[in-house]
C-alpha cells in the first residue's frame, strides 16, 4: 500500500476528531468554566451547584420528564395501530398514506405547533368555526406540547417499527396457527413478546430525543413560562435579563448528554436483543393480509383523522391565513378579502438575504456531510484500518450531543476564537453545525448499503490488478450511488427545515427562512408566517412527489 493510502484514514480520523471531539470536550469545559467567555476564570463545579441547587431547576427536570413521557404516550398510541394497519391489513390507499408519512416527517415541528395554535385559537380557529368560542381551551401547556410533539414523532417511529416488523419471519405467527393456537393467544404469546424489543427501542430512542427537542417546548411552553431542559438552556444563553449564562447552559447540557448516554447504552442492549430475534427467514412468503371487513371505515377514519391533525389542518390554516390581510374565520365576507399580497411581498419580510443564505446552507452543508461520510463509511465497513472502531465511536458520539447543546457549544467556541477565526455570526457557523449534526445519519445510510455489497466484488477487481482507489471509485461507488444520493437528499431536506441551531447561532447576517418565520411569529405577523409556511410545506410536498416519480422507491425508513 502506498504512503498516501496509509495516511488517508488517519486524515479522516483527524477531521472527525476535530468535528466531534472538540464540541464534546467543549461542553465539559463550558460547564466547569466560571466567568465570561474568553476571560480567565477557574474551572469549578460552581455552575452545577448554581443550576441544580436553584429552586426552579427541579421543576424544569420534572417538566422535561412529564413532557417526554406524555409525548411518547401520544406517539406510541397512534404509531402502533398505524404500523399494524399499514403492514398487516387490507387497508386501502396504503401507498398514498406512506407518501404522506414521508412528507409529514419533513414538516418542521414548529410549523405544526404554530398551525395548531391558530387552529385552536378561540376567536379565529376551529372553536369559532364550530361556534364553541366560550370553551376555554389552550395549547400553551404540557398537554398541548404532548399533542404537537407526539404527533410529530409518529411518522419516524412508524418507519422504525415497520422496518422491525418486516424483518420478522411471518412463519413465526403461522407456526402458532398451524399448531392449533388461536388468534388472541398468538397475539399475546407470540406477536407481542417478539415485537416488544422493537417497541421498547423506539420508545427509548424517541424518549431521549423528546428530552432535548426545542421547537414545541419553545413555541408552546415559553409564553406561559413552562420550561423544559432545552428551553432552559436557550433562555440561559439568550439572557433577556443580563449576561448570557454559558456555564449554566453547559451544566444543563452535560446533564442531558449524561442521561442520553445512559439511555443509549440501554438502547444498544435492546437493539442487540432485536437482532437476536431476527432468525433465519424462508423465501419471504408474503403474509396473508388481515381482512378488516366491517371495521374498514373505522380504520380508514383513524388514519385520515391522524393525517388531518398531522398535515392537512395545519396546512389548510396556513393556506387560508396566507390569503388574508389578517386571520379571520372563513365566511363569504372573508372570501371577498382574499389577496395574494402576502406572497407578492414575500421578499420584504427579511429581505432576499435569508433565501440566499438558505440556498447556500442547503447547497454546501449536505455536500460536505456526504463527502465526509463516504470515506468514513468505507473505512468503518471495508478497510482494515486499526482505528476504524474509534472512527465508528466518534460518529456514534456525534449523536449524543443534542442540537440545542451543540449549537450553544459552537456559539461559545466561535465567540472565544473570534479574533483568530472570524466566523462568529456568519453562515459558516450554520454550515458547520449542520454538518456535525447530520454526519451520523448520512454515515448510517451509506454504511447499511455498503455492508450489502459483497466484499468479493472489490476483491475481484483487486486480484485482476486494479489499484485500490480505482476499485473504490469504479466498483464500490457506483454500487452505493443510490444510497449516497438518498442520504444527500435527506440531509438537504433536514437542513432546510432545521431551526433550533439556526436560532441559537443566529445573527443579523446569517438569517435563514426558518428563523425568519420564527421571528415573524414572535412579532405576531400571522399572514406573513403563513405565506412562508405554505412555501416551505409546498416545497417538501413537491420535492417528495417529484423524487418518488423519478426514483421510484424512497428510502424513508433509513431516516430513523
Amino acid at each position, binding site marked *: 500500500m502506498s504512503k498516501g493510502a496509509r495516511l488517508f484514514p488517519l486524515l479522516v480520523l483527524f477531521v472527525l476528531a476535530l468535528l466531534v471531539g472538540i464540541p464534546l470536550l467543549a461542553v465539559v469545559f463550558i460547564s466547569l468554566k466560571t466567568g465570561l467567555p474568553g476571560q480567565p476564570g477557574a474551572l469549578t463545579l460552581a455552575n452545577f451547584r448554581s443550576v441544580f441547587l436553584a429552586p426552579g431547576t427541579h421543576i424544569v427536570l420534572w417538566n422535561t420528564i412529564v413532557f417526554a413521557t406524555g409525548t411518547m404516550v401520544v406517539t406510541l398510541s397512534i404509531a402502533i395501530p398505524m404500523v399494524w394497519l399499514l403492514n398487516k391489513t387490507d387497508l386501502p390507499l396504503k401507498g398514498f398514506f406512506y407518501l404522506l408519512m414521508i412528507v409529514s416527517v419533513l414538516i418542521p415541528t414548529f410549523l405544526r405547533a404554530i398551525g395548531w395554535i391558530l387552529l385552536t385559537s378561540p376567536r379565529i380557529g376551529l372553536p369559532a368555526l364550530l361556534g364553541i368560542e366560550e370553551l376555554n381551551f389552550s395549547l400553551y401547556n404540557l398537554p398541548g406540547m404532548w399533542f404537537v410533539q407526539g404527533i410529530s414523532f409518529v411518522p419516524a417511529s412508524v418507519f422504525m417499527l415497520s422496518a422491525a416488523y418486516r424483518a420478522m*419471519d411471518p*412463519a*413465526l405467527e*403461522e*407456526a*402458532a*396457527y*398451524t*399448531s*392449533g*393456537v*388461536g*388468534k388472541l*393467544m*398468538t397475539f399475546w*404469546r*407470540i406477536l407481542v*413478546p*417478539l415485537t416488544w424489543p422493537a417497541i421498547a427501542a423506539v420508545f427509548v430512542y424517541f424518549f431521549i430525543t423528546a428530552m432535548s427537542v426545542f421547537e414545541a417546548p419553545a413555541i408552546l411552553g415559553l409564553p406561559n413560562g413552562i420550561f423544559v431542559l432545552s428551553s432552559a438552556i436557550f433562555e440561559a444563553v439568550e439572557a433577556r435579563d443580563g449576561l448570557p449564562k454559558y456555564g449554566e447552559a453547559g451544566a444543563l447540557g452535560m446533564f442531558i448528554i449524561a442521561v442520553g448516554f445512559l439511555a443509549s447504552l440501554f438502547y444498544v442492549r435492546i437493539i442487540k436483543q432485536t437482532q*437476536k*430475534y431476527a*432468525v*433465519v*427467514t*424462508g*423465501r419471504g*412468503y408474503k403474509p*396473508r393480509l388481515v381482512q378488516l371487513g366491517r371495521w374498514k371505515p373505522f380504520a380508514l377514519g383513524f388514519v385520515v383523522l391522524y393525517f388531518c391533525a398531522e398535515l392537512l389542518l395545519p396546512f389548510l390554516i396556513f393556506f387560508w391565513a396566507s390569503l388574508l390581510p389578517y386571520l379571520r374565520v372563513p365566511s363569504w365576507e372573508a372570501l371577498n378579502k382574499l389577496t395574494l399580497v402576502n406572497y407578492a411581498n414575500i421578499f420584504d419580510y427579511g429581505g432576499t438575504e435569508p433565501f440566499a443564505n438558505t440556498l447556500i446552507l442547503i447547497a454546501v452543508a449536505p455536500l460536505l456531510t456526504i463527502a465526509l461520510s463516504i470515506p468514513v463509511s468505507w473505512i468503518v465497513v471495508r478497510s482494515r484500518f486499526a482505528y476504524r472502531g474509534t472512527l465508528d465511536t466518534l460518529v456514534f458520539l456525534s449523536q449524543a450531543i443534542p442540537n440545542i447543546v451543540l449549537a450553544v457549544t459552537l456559539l461559545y467556541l466561535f465567540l472565544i476564537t473570534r479574533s483568530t477565526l472570524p466566523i462568529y455570526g456568519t453562515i459558516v457557523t450554520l454550515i458547520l453545525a449542520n454538518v456535525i449534526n447530520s454526519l451520523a445519519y448520512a454515515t448510517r445510510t451509506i454504511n447499511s448499503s455498503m455492508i450489502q455489497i459483497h466484499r468479493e466484488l472489490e476483491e475481484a477487481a483487486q486480484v485482476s490488478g486494479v489499484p485500490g482507489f480505482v476499485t473504490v471509485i469504479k466498483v464500490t461507488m457506483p454500487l452505493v450511488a443510490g444510497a449516497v444520493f438518498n442520504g444527500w437528499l435527506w440531509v438537504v431536506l433536514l437542513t432546510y427545515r432545521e431551526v433550533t441551531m439556526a436560532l441559537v447561532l443566529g445573527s443579523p447576517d446569517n438569517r435563514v427562512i426558518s428563523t425568519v418565520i420564527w421571528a415573524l411569529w414572535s412579532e405576531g405577523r400571522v399572514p406573513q408566517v403563513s405565506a412562508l409556511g405554505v412555501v416551505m410545506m409546498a416545497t417538501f410536498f413537491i420535492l417528495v412527489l417529484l423524487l418518488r416519480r423519478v426514483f421510484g422507491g424512497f428510502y424513508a425508513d433509513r431516516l430513523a
Partner: protein
Amino acid sequence: MIQIQGLTKTFGGVGGRIAAVNGIDLEVEEGEFCVLLGPSGCGKTTTLRCIAGLERPDGGLIRIGHTLVAHPETGVFVPSEKRDISMVFQSYAIWPHMTVYDNVAFPLSWGRRKVNKHEVGRRVDHALALVKLEALKNRPSTDLSGGQQQRVALARALALEAKVILMDEPLSNLDARLRDEMRIELKRLTSQLRVTTLYVTHDQIEALSLADKVCVMNEGSLLQIGKPEEVYKQPRDRFVSEFLGQMNFLTGRIAAADCVESEIGKLAVMIPRGLTIGDEVTLGIRPESIALRRNSEEVSRFPQGEVTVRSFLGNSVLYEVRVGDAMLRVQTGDDSFLPQDSIELHFPADAWRLFLKS
C-alpha cells in the same frame, strides 16, 4: 386422510390475476408419505398452504380426515388453528423468545389441542427424545444451530400428534451433509410413526428417497402421481423425466414394431401402446441405463462413439460420449475408459422412454 378436488388459487399481480394452482386433484392415504415435487413457482407451496389454512383457495374442496375444511363454493373455511394438522416450516419458525422445551410445549399448553400438564411433559420429552434433543431442552432456542432448530421444529410438529404433518421444504436451509443425515432420520421417524405426511420440495433426491408417493407439479398443475420407481422409470412426459434426474434425448421416427430410426442410427426399442409406425418421437434414456464396451474392431451393429470427457464421481464415472453429431452422457461403474477412447454403446431396449413429438 387428505382429499383435494379441483383446487384453484389465484394471486393478484401487476398484469391481472395469476393462477398459482390450477385445478388439482390429490388423495393422500392414512400413514402415507406424499411428496409434492416441482420447480419454484409451480404451486406446490401454495397447495400446501391451502391445506394448512394459511391461504384461502378460490375453488375446489379440501378434506382432512372426514372434515371438510375448505369449500369456497359454500363458504366453508376452517381457520388453521382449528384444523387437525401440524406443520414444519422452511425457516423452522422457532419462537426465539422461548426455550427448546417451551417451543414444543407451547401449542400443547395454550392451543386448541391442549392437554393436561402431565401429558404435556410426557409428550414433549417423548418428541425431543425422538429427535435426540433431550439434552438441550432448557436451552434458549436462539443458541441452537440450524440443524438443531430443524429438529425442534420437527419435535414440535410430532408432539401435537396431529392426523397430518405438513412439511414445507424443511431441509432446504441445511448444508449438504446435514441434509443427507436429516433426510435419513426423517425417513426413519416417519416410517416408525406411520404418520400421514405431505412434504413439499424441489429436490428430486429427497422426493425419491422419502416418498411413498411422488406428485410432480409444474405451472399449477399435477403432471404425474406415482410410486418413486414409477415416476423415475416411466415418466409421462419430458418435463417429468428431466426433473427427476439426468436424461439423454434423441429425435427419431418409428420405423418398425421394435425399431426407431434415430439420429445415431437404428435402435432396438420397445414401442409403447399408442404409438404407431411413422410417428416422430423424442427418445429418452437415463445415463445409468447405457453400457459402454470397447470397440470390437469388426463391423458392429451397435452405435460407435468416442469418449470426450471423463468425470470420476467416486462410486461411478460419468462419461460424455460423442456419437455422430449427438452428445450422450453415460454413468457406469466401469472406470477403465479414457478420453479419445473409441467405444460402442449398448442400449437395453426396455430402457428407452418414447414421447410423441409435439
